[in-house]
């Protein structure tokens, strides 16, 4: 009986989002993506191997963190004998053949939607196979953690130290050396670096985006030198936003609370033409001051931001992305001389990224961006323009080699305003950096052994030519396990502040040189069952020429400290029931800093008493009913003796309710176990003034309407 087309249909389901059932939430990409369970054939052993790919990283170009895993390609067979040999091999090694075919029982809906059934040249890169200490936070992880900023989301990642300095500032680092101006970490948003070359650190208070637009955050611990360059000494954080196709329709959210005073965001996405998608957004937030024992906290913030993203996917081979943001706001602080100020932040960026699949085995991408910062800080005002161009070329010359190579040019020009107490000389400067890199992923034994070799060479205005090599070996004895080992070297180039600092008329930075690290890592990942996996990463880092200050504030800066750090990071996820998921992340860190002379001080976090030995995060996400979600995060962080910050345990609880499919109501309590607790302080060595406030217990409520 034919359908009655006159019947009223239900309202269109809102595009882009409705609450996913917990068991479907992606999390770490299905580790068994490529894998047949042992003993269960998915395809007859002698079927030719289809080449398929799922791009893991939306930002193509150099900032693909993952080495490529090549699988046998019968299409590249060179002659009749080679082709037959391959056929024979596939008969005699049925398990190997199955390993590289699509395991269609394990693909999730999101992965299915991303498979390009046309192009055959890209590579499958599940997180499970990456020979690095990598952790991925998905959009769902971030949503269920009920966090309101990127640094808060990073607390969930093993190996990352996040300490809140005050209501608008964080100290974030990887594997030690944490400080408000931690400088051993590179952070990228869609391939655009957001660290400030003035001091090689990241000002998190103005680096904001709609968390609903984040597709995932990839955190790679360990030197990322080869693909990303100087400053990625201890790790890289790669924040990837959603393709505009995935943010169609409208979203309006608004919330208020005791600490998260008020916040709101609106976004709208549409499809102007068949192959183009656009979204625009605007957001605003205001946060309350933290707790100060003296009652004089001055650290409120309000920040506004707006931006767009435009994606064009030409049929088959070309894709182009253009995005931009502007922001403006104020972040208050107590200066280290006891006075207060409201620091103005303003800026914007424009980025274009083009990628073309040249053939089955070659791809080319070009990225250009412009970034402007205006920092109205009385102690160090900064106006900066950055231009960055990167070209990346990837190709597979033979089935066993996949090579990624690239060229980069960066031009950053600034104008710094200081005070009589401290300034920079020269006050205006333009730094240029040229770089080239190459990385080869070699399949030694297909599906078992892979070797990645690479190096980057960079030429900059401070230290001349730097080489940053990287070698990784991966062993996958069976589809459920990987063991990997790596040795790499990386460099941190002196920041503008270090090199050009003038205090009381004296230049302090003339002797400053690069810091170097040699990192030795080992890791193991295992998919125990389809509901349980764990990941262990260990490292031993040797640092030389770490920045030191002293004996007095007028002494020239020097690089007279070495350090050895080592630690273990363990992560695990257990899908206990279809409605209940548990995550755990444990970090152990040991730092041993040796100063050349006792009257020196290790600068910028180079002090074992400024970094916690142990950190533990436990997360629970529970779907109580079809429309009710209950989430909890329990965190323990060890003490920081240098700041007199004791160890703390804290708990966040969140409740999410969907009274209608397009409406989400959230109620969240944060830092519930204590009225207030400190996490990080800044102590001025000369004045003894301590700045920084304590994190307070807080509650917020939020409404999100998707249409």
């Amino acid at each position, binding site marked *: 009986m034919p359908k009655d087309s006159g019947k009223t249909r239900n309202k269109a*389901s809102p595009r882009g989002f*409705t609450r996913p059932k917990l068991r479907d939430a992606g999390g770490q990409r299905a580790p068994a993506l490529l894998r047949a369970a042992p003993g269960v054939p998915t395809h*007859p052993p002698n079927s030719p191997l289809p080449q398929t790919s799922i791009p893991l990283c939306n930002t193509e170009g150099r900032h693909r963190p993952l080495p490529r895993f090549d699988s046998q390609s019968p299409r590249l067979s060179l002659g009749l*004998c080679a082709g037959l040999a391959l*056929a024979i091999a596939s008969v005699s090694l049925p398990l190997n053949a199955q390993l590289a075919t699509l395991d269609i029982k394990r693909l999730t809906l999101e992965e299915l939607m991303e498979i390009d*059934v046309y192009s055959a040249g890209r590579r499958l890169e599940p997180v499970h196979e990456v020979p690095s200490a990598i952790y991925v936070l998905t959009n769902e992880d971030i949503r269920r953690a009920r966090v309101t900023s990127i640094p808060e989301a990073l607390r969930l990642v093993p190996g990352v130290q996040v300490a809140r300095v005050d209501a608008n500032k964080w100290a974030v680092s990887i594997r030690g050396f944490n400080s408000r101006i931690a400088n051993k970490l590179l952070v990228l948003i869609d391939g655009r670096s957001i660290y400030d070359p003035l001091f090689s650190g990241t000002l998190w208070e103005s680096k904001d985006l709609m968390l609903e637009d984040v597709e995932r955050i990839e955190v790679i611990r360990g030197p990322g030198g080869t693909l990303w360059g100087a400053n990625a000494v201890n790790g890289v954080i790669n924040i990837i936003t959603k393709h505009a196709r995935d943010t169609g329709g409208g979203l309006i959210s608004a919330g208020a609370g005791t600490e998260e005073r008020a916040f709101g965001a609106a976004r709208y996405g549409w499809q102007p033409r068949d192959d183009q998608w656009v979204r625009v957004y605007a957001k605003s937030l205001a946060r309350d001051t933290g707790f100060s024992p003296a009652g004089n906290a001055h650290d409120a913030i309000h920040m506004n931001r707006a931006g767009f993203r435009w994606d064009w996917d030409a049929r088959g081979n070309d894709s182009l992305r253009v995005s931009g943001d502007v922001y403006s706001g104020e972040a208050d602080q107590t200066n280290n001389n006891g006075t207060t100020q409201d620091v103005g932040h303003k800026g914007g960026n424009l980025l274009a990224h083009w990628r073309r699949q040249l053939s089955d085995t070659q791809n080319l991408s070009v990225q250009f961006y412009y970034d402007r910062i205006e920092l109205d800080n009385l102690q160090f005002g900064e106006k900066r323009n950055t231009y960055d161009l990167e070209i990346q070329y990837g190709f597979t010359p033979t089935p066993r080699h996949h090579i990624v190579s690239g060229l980069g040019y960066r031009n950053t020009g600034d104008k710094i305003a200081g005070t009589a107490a401290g300034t920079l000389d020269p006050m205006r400067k333009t730094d240029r950096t040229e770089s080239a890199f190459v990385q080869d992923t070699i399949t030694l034994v297909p599906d078992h052994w892979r070797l990645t070799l690479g190096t980057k060479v960079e030429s900059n205005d401070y230290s001349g030519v730097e080489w940053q090599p990287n070698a990784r070996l991966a062993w996958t004895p069976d589809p459920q396990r990987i063991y990997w080992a790596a040795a790499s070297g990386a460099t941190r180039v002196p920041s503008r502040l270090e090199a050009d600092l003038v205090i009381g008329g004296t230049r302090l930075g003339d002797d400053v040189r690069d810091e170097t690290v040699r990192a030795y890592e080992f890791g193991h990942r295992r998919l125990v069952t389809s509901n349980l996996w764990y990941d262990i990463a260990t490292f031993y880092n040797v640092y030389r020429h770490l920045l030191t200050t002293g004996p007095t504030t007028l002494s020239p800066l020097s690089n007279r400290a070495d350090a050895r750090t080592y630690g273990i990071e363990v992560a695990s996820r257990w899908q206990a029931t279809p409605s209940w998921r548990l995550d755990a992340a444990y970090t152990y860190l040991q730092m041993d800093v040796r100063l050349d002379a006792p009257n020196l001080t290790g600068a910028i976090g180079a002090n074992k008493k400024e970094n916690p030995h142990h950190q533990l995060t436990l997360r629970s996400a529970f779907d109580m009913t079809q429309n009710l979600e209950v989430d909890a995060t329990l965190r323990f962080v060890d003490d920081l003796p240098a700041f007199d910050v004791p160890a703390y345990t804290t708990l966040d609880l969140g409740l999410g309710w969907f009274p209608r499919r397009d409406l989400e109501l959230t109620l969240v309590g944060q830092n519930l176990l204590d009225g207030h607790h400190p996490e990080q302080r800044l102590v001025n060595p000369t004045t003894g003034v301590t700045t920084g406030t304590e994190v307070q217990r807080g509650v917020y409520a939020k409404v999100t309407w998707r249409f």
Partner: protein
Amino acid sequence: MRRSNELKKMTVGGALLMLAAALPAQTPAPPLEYQVKASYLFNFIRFITWPADVFTGDGKFNLCVVGAERFGNALNAFSGERTEGRTIMVHRLERPAQARASRCHLLFIAVGSGTGPLGIERGMLTVGETRGFLERGGIINLVETRGHIRFEIDRAAAEEAGLEVSSRLLSLALGRS
């Protein structure tokens, strides 16, 4: 010297050829497109709830396909697979009209298997891959845009068939009423 080299090559080549002849004829792998569609079907089974009364208690989920040749052996992966407490049985049909007799829970109608209107049967999820499948009365249609396979759902038809579609599937479906 050269002659013995040539002889060697011929021997090896000949041996390989004979070996090749001994191999069973290779069935070409199903095109990627149909592997993806097969995987979609599997996901639909997982994320849709059927009314309990359409199951006979033998623990079987009947997955029926009209035009199964297109899938090659991609469907073999699911035959006998257990999910949601039931075992998937793959049935290859000639025409959609045979579906009722086979007590199909999921009926996939490949392109080229007819264009007539489809009625809505209680407990039967109809999935197609042709333009206008939903207008014909189908419940889910697999469409290809820019090289990606996506799907659209007719929610009213699903409700009429007594099927409860999870919000996850709805959120990922192409915008339609």
